[in-house]
């Protein structure tokens, strides 16, 4: 898969534009209409979260709130019900934090080592391992769900229970499924470094770990940023792994969000639902807007994560 090598191009390459022509107006019209289509749901999310249901009624989905309020945000955060518990999204936020803060560094360090070894320390079978790993990026998760449930429930913990449905369990699952794409990312990065760098370090007598920590690690800062963005958004947005593997105590925010929405009885309370949606989307959105081009760089590689 050479997807990861596709980087965002430098200069527009299309035909040179003339001055204002009908064609040019058409292009802008198309882009602006498309932009509106993309922005409408965000606008609806924000507007709806700040007004009561009465103000949405009668086709007023796009109306500005008469008395903008953050009450629904507060409710979504701290008192909306998921099943019998009414603690809002807050527990889900902290669970997602725990999962992300553990799984991101673990998966990145492991994958960085893989990429480094695959580029500079090939051994018999290393390419085969890499091939199998990349193949894994294409496999639908559903194929592996039961085998992993089975494996995690076979690991008995000394304090009782098994790994299935625990925080370490879900972190392991994220580290497994993050590995193919991150390894690809790091392998391509290390392969692009000049080989002399590695040879010089070898001549100086440095070994596998020494070269990794003193030469490679400091040079991989930019690619690591891409990897962090990829993993933070990927893990934060995950739903199915959290649903299956995290266990009741560690349900991530996306699962809590879905539970809150499913719990509403009678008329759907879209105000609270949309406030909950914004709160859940806030972390990846902030990452996206702050990281800008870095995010785009990760996309070609990261899109495969789904």
């Amino acid at each position, binding site marked *: 898969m050479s997807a990861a090598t596709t980087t965002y191009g430098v200069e527009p390459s299309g035909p040179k534009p003339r001055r204002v022509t009908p064609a040019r107006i058409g292009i802008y019209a198309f882009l602006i209409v498309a932009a509106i289509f993309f922005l409408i749901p965000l606008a609806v999310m924000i507007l709806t979260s700040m007004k009561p249901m009465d103000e949405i009624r009668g086709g007023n989905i796009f109306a500005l709130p008469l008395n903008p309020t953050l009450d629904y945000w507060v409710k979504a955060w701290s008192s909306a019900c998921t099943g019998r518990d009414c603690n809002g999204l807050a527990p889900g936020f902290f669970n997602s934090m725990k999962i992300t803060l553990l799984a991101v560094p673990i998966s990145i360090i492991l994958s960085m080592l893989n990429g480094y070894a695959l580029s500079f320390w090939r051994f018999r079978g290393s390419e085969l391992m890499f091939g199998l790993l990349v193949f894994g990026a294409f496999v639908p998760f*559903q194929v592996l769900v*039961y085998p992993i449930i089975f494996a995690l429930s076979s690991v008995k913990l000394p304090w009782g229970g098994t790994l299935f449905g625990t925080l370490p369990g879900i972190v392991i699952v994220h580290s497994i499924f993050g590995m193919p794409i991150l390894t690809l990312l790091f392998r391509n990065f290390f392969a692009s470094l000049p080989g002399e760098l590695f040879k010089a370090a070898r001549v100086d007598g440095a070994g596998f770990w020494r070269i990794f920590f003193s030469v490679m690690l400091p040079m991989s800062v930019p690619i690591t940023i891409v990897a962090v963005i990829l993993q933070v958004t990927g893990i934060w947005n995950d*739903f199915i792994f959290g649903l299956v593997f995290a266990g009741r105590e560690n349900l991530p925010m996306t699962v809590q969000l879905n539970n809150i929405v499913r719990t509403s009885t009678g008329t*759907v309370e879209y105000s609270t639902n949309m406030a909950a949606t914004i709160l859940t*989307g806030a972390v990846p959105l902030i990452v996206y807007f702050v990281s800008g081009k870095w995010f785009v760089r990760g996309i070609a590689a990261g*899109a*495969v994560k789904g």
Partner: protein
Amino acid sequence: MGKLPAIIGTLPMMIVAIGVFVIGIAFTVVLSFTNTKFFLINIDFVGMRQYDILWSTPRWLQSVANIWLYGFGHIGLCVVLGFLLAVAMDQRIRGEDTFRTIFLYPFALSAVITGLVWQLMLDPIWGLQAYVRSLGFADFTFAPLANGSTALYGMIIASTWNGVGVTMAILLAGLRGVDEEIWKAAKIDGIPTWRTYISIVIPMMRGATATALVLLVVNTVRTFDIVIAMTGGGPGISTQMPATYVIDSINARNVAQGTAGATVMLLPIAALILLQAFFRWRAARIKARAV
């Protein structure tokens, strides 16, 4: 000599590659020939029985029909819209960064969020239909999710909103990889712009297009989150997908049935990989002949 630390350093990779991917897939395939309920006690091999059940279960048949329709709709829309957006973005426009930011932000949001916000947009009482009716078009109808025969189209709209930006980004990178000289040559020969795109540029973008398509196919096969968030598989079973069938079967303690569905889900991926191998083989042969 010297390689041992590398082997130790990549031990997790080997465990994942072999222990999870190879053994895990084999495990799933083997279980699909048994009648395992949930725990692995008394494994009975029952041949193809799980597959017979699978292909005579209405919900599975519906799921397979759904994923074809959904796949063609979603992938087709993403490729066509993604390409048009990429071409428009490539015309030395002003505010390119702003447009890109807008087209790509939905991808930063999870499928659950995408499903929920579009559920509101497509809600007949609260969403777009009510809005257009309030403008005076009292008969306006646009509520795909309310009806089993149209619910999938609603899901296609939502998932395309989420994913088209990525296709655009990949295709735009492909467009910009086309040599500037091509454009100059086409201009000198007096070939119209649209002709240049269709006859010269698009064929040259095979790599980017293949990448975008592979990503779309892989993500389509897995479709799960958006179904749960948007329709829960309904109305009825009208938006069920193979992935939801597998997960529900496992949850319902019918693991063998779930693994049979999962094994079928592997087929399109296997086809993709064989296709890729074929193209590689052909490219190598053409190269060998040329020498």
